[in-house]
C-alpha cells in the first residue's frame, strides 16, 4: 500500500507538472548568450535602414532634399512619404481605429517622428546619410498641455481629420478631440455624491512613462521576388495579428506572408503595435529585392515607440461617516499624442479602465474619458498591465487613501470594510464587469498579520513624535495597496483587435515514442512559456514536461492566436493548452481501453497512465498509448495523436493581491528608502511557483521604477526631456529592495485549470503601494496626494510645501 502511494508521488514528480518549480528551459541558451534575437539575424545581401527624425514637435515640411544622402557610398535608397503614396502606404491604420503617418506627410506632429528612411549597405553609411538628408521645416505652434488641447484657439494638429465630426469611437467635438467614452450611471452617481455624508475629491495624474524593454523594437523584412513570399522577423508580441495587418495593408495575400517572432528581450506592451520601421523595411525590401533590417536605438525607442499611461484623472468618492462607500466618479483626460495608437480591444478606447471600482463593493459609479491629441509621441500601450488597468488601480487605490484621510480612518480598515465579500462572487461591478472569484479578506488579513501592521503604525506614531521633537529628520510611511486586475482578454463577444476575436490557441502533436510538441498562438518575451505550458500539458496528458517542446512565434507553424500582452497567455492560451490536452487524453483513453480490452468507461487516467478501474495493476502508460496511436487504434478511429484547441474564454480572470510597502524618507534630501515590500498575490492555480515569484520580482521592480522615477516629460517646445537611460529611471539591483512574496490560492471557476495570470499583477498593484507609502509618510502634516514620480526633488518639494525643510 505504502509502496504504491510513494510510486504515485514519484510518477508525479517525474512529470514536473503543475505546481512544480521547474527550472526554466529557456535559460540554458540565455545565460550562455545564445539567444536568437532579431538583431542576431543576418541574411546574405541584407541592408540596413535608419530614420531621419523630426527635431520639432510641430512643423510643416517645406521640402526634403535627398541628394547629399544618396551620394554617400553604400546608400541604396532614401524613402519619403511621396515614395510611399503610390503604394498607399504613406499612412497606416492604428490599432485604435485612427490612422498614423508612416513617414511625415506634409507635417510632423511630435519630436522624433519618422521623416525619411535611409537604406544602406551597413549601419554606419545609413547613419551618416541620415544626417545629410536636408529637411526644411516651418515651425508651427506646439500643443503640449493636454488641458489646453480643446481650447477654442488650440492649434490644429490633425489636418487630415478636418471636418470629421465622427471618430472611431463616436462624435468628436473639437479638432483635437479623439473620443469620449462613458460607462456607468451618471445620474445615480451624482445623486450619491450629493446625498453623501462625506465626499473626497482629488486630481491624480499617472505620468507618461515608457515600457523600455531591454531589447528595442526592430525587424528584418525579406521579400522573395521570385515566389512573392514575404518573411518578416520582428519583435512582435502578436505575430499572427501582424501577419493579418501586413496582408491587409500591403495587399500581399496572407498565405504568402510569414511572420516570425524570434527570442524577444522584453515587450511590456511596447511591441504590440505596428511601427513605421516595419512598414518601411517591408517596402524597402520589396523595392530593392533584398532583405532589410531596421533596429531602433535606445533614444529612438524612448522617444517614439509607444509610451504608456499619461492619464489625468479627477476623482470623487463618497461615503457614510463610518466609512461605507456610496459612490465613485472619475473623469479622465487622456493624452494620446499625435495619433491615437493605443493598443486596446476595439470596443474599449480607454481599455478596461472601468475596473476602477477596484476590489470594493461600490453601489454606483460613473466614468468618462476624453482622449485628446497633443504634439507628443503616440502610444498609450498596456505597460505590463492589462489595458489601462494600472491607471484604474492607481486611481482607486489613491482615492481610498484620500478618503481614509478625510474620514480619519486607517486605510487598511477602510479597505476591509468595503471589500467585495467572498460569498458575493461572481460579482457584477457597478461599471459592468463580472468578477470571477476572490477572497479579499483572507488575503488582506494574511498580509497585515505578516508585516505586523499594527506594530508598524505604532512605530510610525513614535517616529512622528520624535520628528516633531527634532530628534530625527526621517519619516516613516506605510503604504497599503490592494488590487484587482482584469486580464485574459478576452471573450470574443466583447474583445477583438481590428475585428480579430481575442481567442487563443494550442496545437499538440504526440510523437510515437511518447514525447510531444505543442505550438501556441502566443509568444514569450521572457515569461517562460516553454517551461510553464509544458507543465500544464504534463499534468493534463501524463507526458513529462521535459519531453514536451513548446514552440511559438512562427505563423507558418503555430496556430492563429492574438499574442502575448495583457496577461492573456495563461488565461487564454493556457486554457487552450489544457483543452487541447484533454482532447488528446480523450482519444488516448479510447486507445488504452482498446489495448486493455475493456470498455472506454472502465479505464481511468492516473498521472501518466490509464488503469483499469479497480485493477490498478492493469494499465497502459501514455508512452505505450502514444505508440499504439500510430499502429494499433480501435476500429473506426483515425491513427495519430494530435489535437488543436481554439479557446474563446467565457470571461476574463480577476487576479488580486495585497501589498504593503514601508519607506523611510529623508526629508532633507528627498531620498526615499524602501525598507520593506511585501507582496501577496492570488493568481488562482499556481503552475510554476518559481516563475511566479520571478514575475512578481520583475513587475515590482518596474512598479518601483514608475512610482519613484520614471517619466517621459516634454518642455514647452515639445522637446522630449531625458530620453536616455541616464535620466529615464531603470533601477539596478542597488536601488531594488528585497521583495517578500506570498500567496493565497483562489482558482478561477471558469478557467480549465483555475489559473488567472500573474505577470502584470505586481506592476498594477505595486505602483499604488509605493505611492501610498510616500503619501502616508506626510499624512499627519495634512498631505492627501502628491504626484508621481516620487523622485528626490519632488519629495523634497512636498516636504518644503509642508514646511518641514530646514
Amino acid at each position, binding site marked *: 500500500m505504502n509502496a504504491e502511494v510513494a510510486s504515485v508521488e514519484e510518477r508525479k514528480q517525474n512529470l514536473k507538472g503543475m505546481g512544480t518549480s521547474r527550472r526554466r528551459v529557456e535559460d540554458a541558451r540565455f545565460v550562455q548568450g545564445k539567444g536568437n534575437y532579431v538583431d542576431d539575424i543576418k541574411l546574405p545581401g541584407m541592408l540596413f535602414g*535608419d530614420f531621419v527624425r523630426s527635431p520639432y514637435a510641430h512643423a510643416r515640411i517645406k521640402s526634403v532634399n535627398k541628394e547629399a544622402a544618396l551620394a554617400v557610398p553604400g546608400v541604396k535608397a532614401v524613402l519619403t512619404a511621396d515614395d510611399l503614396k503610390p503604394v498607399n502606404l504613406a499612412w497606416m491604420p492604428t490599432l485604435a481605429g485612427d490612422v498614423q503617418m508612416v513617414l511625415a506627410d506634409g507635417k510632423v506632429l511630435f519630436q522624433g517622428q519618422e521623416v525619411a528612411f535611409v537604406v544602406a549597405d551597413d*549601419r*554606419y553609411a545609413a*547613419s*551618416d546619410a541620415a*544626417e545629410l538628408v536636408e529637411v526644411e521645416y516651418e515651425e508651427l505652434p506646439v500643443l503640449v498641455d493636454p488641458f489646453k488641447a480643446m481650447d477654442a484657439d488650440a492649434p490644429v494638429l490633425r489636418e487630415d481629420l478636418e471636418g470629421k465630426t465622427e471618430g472611431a469611437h463616436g462624435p468628436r467635438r473639437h479638432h483635437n478631440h479623439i473620443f469620449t467614452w462613458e460607462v456607468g450611471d451618471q445620474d445615480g452617481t451624482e445623486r450619491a455624491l450629493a446625498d453623501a455624508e462625506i465626499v473626497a475629491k482629488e486630481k491624480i495624474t499617472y505620468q507618461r512613462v515608457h515600457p523600455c524593454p531591454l531589447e528595442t523594437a526592430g525587424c528584418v523584412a525579406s521579400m522573395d521576388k521570385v515566389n512573392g513570399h514575404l518573411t518578416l522577423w520582428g519583435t512582435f508580441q502578436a505575430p499572427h495579428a501582424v501577419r493579418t495587418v501586413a496582408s491587409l495593408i500591403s495587399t500581399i495575400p496572407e498565405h504568402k506572408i510569414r511572420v516570425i517572432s524570434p527570442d524577444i528581450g522584453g515587450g511590456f506592451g511596447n511591441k504590440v503595435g505596428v511601427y513605421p520601421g516595419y512598414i518601411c523595411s517591408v517596402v524597402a525590401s520589396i523595392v530593392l529585392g533584398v532583405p532589410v533590417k531596421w533596429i531602433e*536605438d*535606445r*533614444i529612438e525607442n524612448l522617444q517614439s515607440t509607444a509610451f504608456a499611461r499619461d492619464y489625468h484623472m479627477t476623482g470623487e468618492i463618497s461615503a457614510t461617516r463610518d466609512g461605507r462607500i456610496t459612490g465613485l466618479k472619475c473623469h479622465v483626460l487622456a493624452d494620446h499624442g499625435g495619433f491615437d495608437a493605443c493598443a486596446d480591444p476595439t470596443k474599449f478606447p480607454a481599455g478596461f479602465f472601468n475596473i476602477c471600482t477596484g476590489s470594493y463593493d461600490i453601489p454606483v459609479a460613473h466614468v468618462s474619458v476624453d482622449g485628446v491629441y497633443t504634439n507628443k509621441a503616440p502610444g498609450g500601450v498596456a505597460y505590463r498591465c492589462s489595458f489601462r488597468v494600472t491607471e484604474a488601480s492607481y486611481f482607486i487605490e489613491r482615492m481610498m487613501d484620500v478618503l481614509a484621510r478625510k474620514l480619519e480612518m486607517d486605510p487598511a480598515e477602510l479597505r476591509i470594510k468595503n471589500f467585495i465579500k467572498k460569498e458575493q462572487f461572481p460579482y457584477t461591478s457597478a461599471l459592468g464587469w463580472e468578477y470571477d472569484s476572490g477572497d479579499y479578506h483572507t488575503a488582506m488579513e494574511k498580509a497585515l498579520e505578516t508585516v505586523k501592521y499594527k506594530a508598524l503604525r505604532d512605530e510610525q506614531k513614535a517616529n512622528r513624535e520624535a520628528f516633531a521633537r527634532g530628534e530625527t529628520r526621517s519619516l516613516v510611511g506605510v503604504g497599503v495597496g490592494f488590487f484587482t486586475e482584469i486580464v485574459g482578454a478576452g471573450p470574443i463577444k466583447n474583445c477583438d483587435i481590428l475585428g480579430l476575436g481575442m481567442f487563443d490557441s494550442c496545437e499538440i502533436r504526440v510523437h510515437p515514442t511518447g514525447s510531444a510538441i505543442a505550438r501556441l498562438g502566443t509568444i514569450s518575451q521572457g515569461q517562460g512559456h516553454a517551461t510553464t505550458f509544458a507543465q500544464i500539458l504534463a499534468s493534463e496528458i501524463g507526458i513529462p514536461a521535459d519531453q514536451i517542446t513548446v514552440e511559438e512565434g512562427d505563423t507558418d507553424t503555430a496556430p492563429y492566436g492574438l499574442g502575448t500582452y495583457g496577461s492573456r497567455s495563461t488565461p487564454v492560451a493556457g486554457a487552450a493548452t489544457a483543452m487541447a490536452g484533454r482532447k488528446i487524453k480523450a482519444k488516448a483513453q479510447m486507445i488504452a481501453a482498446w489495448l486493455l480490452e475493456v470498455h472506454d468507461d472502465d479505464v481511468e487516467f492516473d498521472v501518466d497512465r490509464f488503469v483499469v478501474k479497480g485493477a490498478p495493476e492493469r494499465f497502459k502508460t501514455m508512452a505505450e498509448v502514444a505508440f499504439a496511436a500510430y499502429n494499433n487504434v480501435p476500429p473506426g478511429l483515425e491513427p495519430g495523436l494530435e489535437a488543436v484547441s481554439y479557446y474563446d474564454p467565457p470571461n476574463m480572470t480577476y487576479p488580486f493581491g495585497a501589498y504593503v510597502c514601508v519607506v523611510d524618507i529623508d526629508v*532633507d*534630501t*528627498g*531620498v526615499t528608502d524602501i525598507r520593506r515590500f511585501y507582496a501577496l498575490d492570488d493568481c488562482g492555480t499556481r503552475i510554476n511557483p518559481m516563475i511566479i515569484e520571478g514575475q512578481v520580482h520583475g513587475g515590482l521592480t518596474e512598479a518601483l521604477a514608475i512610482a519613484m*522615477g520614471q517619466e517621459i516629460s516634454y518642455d514647452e517646445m515639445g522637446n522630449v*526631456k*531625458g530620453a536616455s*537611460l*541616464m*535620466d529615464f*529611471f*531603470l*533601477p*539596478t539591483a*542597488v*536601488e531594488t529592495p528585497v521583495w517578500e512574496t506570498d500567496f493565497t490560492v483562489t482558482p478561477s471557476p471558469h478557467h480549465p485549470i483555475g489559473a488567472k495570470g500573474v505577470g502584470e499583477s505586481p506592476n498594477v498593484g505595486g505602483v499604488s503601494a509605493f505611492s501610498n507609502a510616500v503619501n502616508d509618510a506626510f499624512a499627519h502634516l495634512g498631505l492627501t496626494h502628491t504626484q508621481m514620480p516620487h*523622485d*528626490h*526633488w519632488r519629495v*523634497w*518639494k512636498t516636504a518644503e510645501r509642508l514646511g518641514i*525643510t530646514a
Partner: protein
Amino acid sequence: MIPGSFEYHRPESVDGAIALLNEHGDEARLLAGGHSLIPMMKLRMAVPSHIVDLQAIDSLHGISEEGGELVIGALTTQHEVLTSDLLAAKCPIIPEAAALIADPQVRYCGTIGGNVANGDPGNDMPAIMQALGARFRAVGPNGSRDIAARDYYEAAYFTELEENEVLTQIRIPTPAVGHGSAYEKQKRKIGDYATAAAAVILTVESGRCISASIALTNVASTPLYAEAAAGALVGTDLGADAVDTAVRLAEEITEPTSDGRGPADFRTHVAGIMVRRAIARAQKNAG
C-alpha cells in the same frame, strides 16, 4: 547611436601622441578609457576624425609616492584607484569617490586622467582634486608644466589644457597623517552623475579645526573650490554655527542648472546638505 567615421592611432609614447595631436589639430581627440568620449561620439556630439588611443603608453599607468607627493598616472583606471592600498592608507577620499563613480564596468575602463581632463562638471574626481590641492602635469611640444586643479577648469568641457597637450600625471601633496575626509554624493541611481556632491578634508587638533578644504561637484559649469566655506571652519571647534556658516557660504557659490535631477534651488539645497554631512563625517574620521 552610431559614431561618425574616424581614423584610429595607437602611439606607444607620450611624444608620439603629441606628434599626432600636432599633426591633426582640433580634428584629433585623445582616447583613454572611452567612457566619456565614446558616448559623446555615439550621440555625434563629438565627431573627431582622428582618435589617438593612449592605452599603449606604459609610462602613463601606476600609482606611487614620490617625496611627499602621491603620483597617479593618467591612464590608471578608476578600478585601480579604488583598490590601491597606498591610496587607501594615505588618501582614502580618492578610493571613496571612485567607488561612487558609475558601476564596475565603467570603472574597469574609465581612467582617472580622463575623468579629470574631460571637464565634465558631472565628473567626481575634479572636485576631489581641488579639495586635495592636486596639480595636473601637462606635457606638450614645448615640454611639461603643472596646472593646479583649482585653476584648471574654465567652463563645461573647457580647460586650461592646450589642444596639443597630454595630461600625464596627477600629483597630490600627501595629506597630513590623521586628516579626516569625506565625499558625500547624492545621485538618483547607480550610474548617475551627482545631483550635488561635496568633498571635505579637515585636520583637527585637540578639537580645533586647523585646516579645511571643501569642493563641490555638479552644481555649476565647473567643479567649485569652496574656499570661503572652508575658511569658516578653520580655527573653530566645528560647532553648529561654524558649520551653518560653511554650508551657507558653499550654497552661495553654486549655480546649478535645472535638469532631471531637480530644479536649481533643490540642487543648491542638496549641495548644502552634502557639505554638512561631509563635514560631520570628516570630523569623525579625523585624528
